[in-house]
């Protein structure tokens, strides 16, 4: 690159940088983030919720136009809130989700010592091919990209396995989770991909722990072995006060695919047991999720509000609603399709 080209690009780049700073200089400064955010656990639950919705959206765009959408022998996840708060109406419903998620998103497979307060010490997940960076190392003939996150004290490492996928590895204080060991233990299978690990080859002290993406598990039960397998899709129904879009609720229902795989998949910024229904409520900044199981189904009721979840429904109100969920009839469900 000659100096003339550098000069031209720099001139424009510096002007663009100056203008960008001038643009942000007049933006409103939001309230300072000052909560004790357990980012890792928040991320897990948010990702789980997203996966639910990714599946749902995938279904919306690909669902068949006719015929039964519940497999033989499957439990039916089409349930509704049996009673609504005063003034609330059901907005719509869709599901069961039977289509796999979009290939680009990928599944998340977690492995580690124990979930603990900061999440698993070690996680593996498939990601798109490493194609955004030129800061590679080469380990055992493979391209490897390391991304330290000093704030969380973790390191993310991406190990190329082929032209399409890499294995992502997130580790925290687990020194024996070397790249060599990971390559010996893990492989990427399937399209969309998931990381498959032979438990016998995991480093000492590392064991498979609950998967954080129950929605994926529910949609692809053939990928899992053991457990109380109930091949079912997932169904979603939405609720809100009539004429008010500032608060609302979503009921998501999935089949339980290996009890432990599903039940322990969520981590919140804080969580509280709800013994009345044998569930747990997870609190977030602008939403609250109540998770419980019944009849080989996992239910999650999420509420949100512009001024926080309490502006929508209290925990007691959520628990009362949870106690009155009921199966929807096929005709009733069909009428709620968007």
């Amino acid at each position, binding site marked *: 690159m000659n100096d003339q080209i550098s000069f031209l*690009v720099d001139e424009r780049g510096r002007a*663009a940088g100056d203008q*960008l700073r001038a643009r942000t200089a007049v*933006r409103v400064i939001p309230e300072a983030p000052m909560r004790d955010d357990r980012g890792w656990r*928040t991320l897990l639950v*948010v990702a789980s919720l997203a996966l639910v919705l990714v599946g749902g959206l995938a279904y919306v765009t690909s669902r068949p136009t006719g015929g039964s959408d519940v497999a033989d022998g499957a439990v039916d996840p089409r349930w509704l809130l049996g009673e609504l708060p005063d003034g609330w109406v059901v907005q719509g419903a869709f599901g069961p989700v039977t289509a796999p998620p979009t290939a680009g998103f990928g599944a998340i497979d977690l492995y580690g010592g124990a979930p603990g307060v900061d999440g698993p010490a070690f996680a593996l997940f498939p990601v798109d091919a490493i194609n955004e960076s030129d800061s590679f190392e080469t380990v055992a003939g493979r391209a490897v990209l390391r991304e330290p996150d*000093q704030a969380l004290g973790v390191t993310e490492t991406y190990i190329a396995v082929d032209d399409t996928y890499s294995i*992502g590895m997130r580790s925290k204080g687990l020194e024996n989770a070397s790249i060599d060991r990971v390559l010996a233990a893990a492989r990427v299978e399937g399209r969309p991909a998931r990381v498959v690990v032979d438990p016998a080859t995991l480093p000492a002290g590392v064991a498979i722990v609950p998967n954080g993406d129950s929605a994926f598990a529910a949609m692809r039960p053939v990928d899992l072995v053991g457990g109380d397998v109930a091949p079912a899709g997932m169904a979603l129904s939405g609720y809100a006060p009539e004429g008010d*879009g500032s608060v609302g609720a979503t009921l998501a229902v999935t089949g339980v695919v290996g009890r432990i795989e599903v039940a322990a998949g969520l981590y919140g910024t804080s969580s509280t047991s709800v013994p009345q229904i044998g569930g747990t409520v997870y609190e977030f900044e602008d939403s609250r999720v109540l998770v419980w199981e019944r009849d080989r189904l996992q239910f999650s009721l999420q509420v*949100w509000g512009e001024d926080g979840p309490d502006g929508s429904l209290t925990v007691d109100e959520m628990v009362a609603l949870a106690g009155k969920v009921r199966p929807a009839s096929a005709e009733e469900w069909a009428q709620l399709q968007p």
Partner: protein
Amino acid sequence: VIATNHTDTPALFVPYEAFYHDHYRRVLALAYGVTGSWGDAEDLTQDAFAAAFRKWRDISAYEDPVAWVKRCVVNRSVSRWRRLAAEARTLTRAGARTRSNYQDPDPPDPDFWRAVHTLPAAQRQVIALFYVEDMDTETIASLLDRPLGTVKSQLGRARGALHEQLTSDPKGTSHE
């Protein structure tokens, strides 16, 4: 309480909120430079300041606390986990309630920033620090913990790619 940057003076506790208000907008510009989206930039900036808040007692004693936040921004900009979280937030909102009508306003010289955001992540980070933060390559190398030669090489390749894109695209030849 008065903040100080003099290393020979005992560090005094800098109020976090004052620090946040003093630096939020500048960090937001950097975050836009590496992400190319106002929404992502705001999320990333908030995440970085939230991380600083959690360790504020230590970070406030640093000679240059905002450098820590900037490093956090550029590192997290390529984090797959952060991208998952951002997608998740978007999808959660999209699925659970009416989509926001908020549209990202174009930045000044959008053609330039569009070209920047086609670069590999490592080059994008260097470009954002070089043009938005006006850092020299030595400072960038220190902040990113990369060899100086690597940073210079990445900057050179990025300049070449930007020149090629901006001159091959007729719209790229003019700017604000």
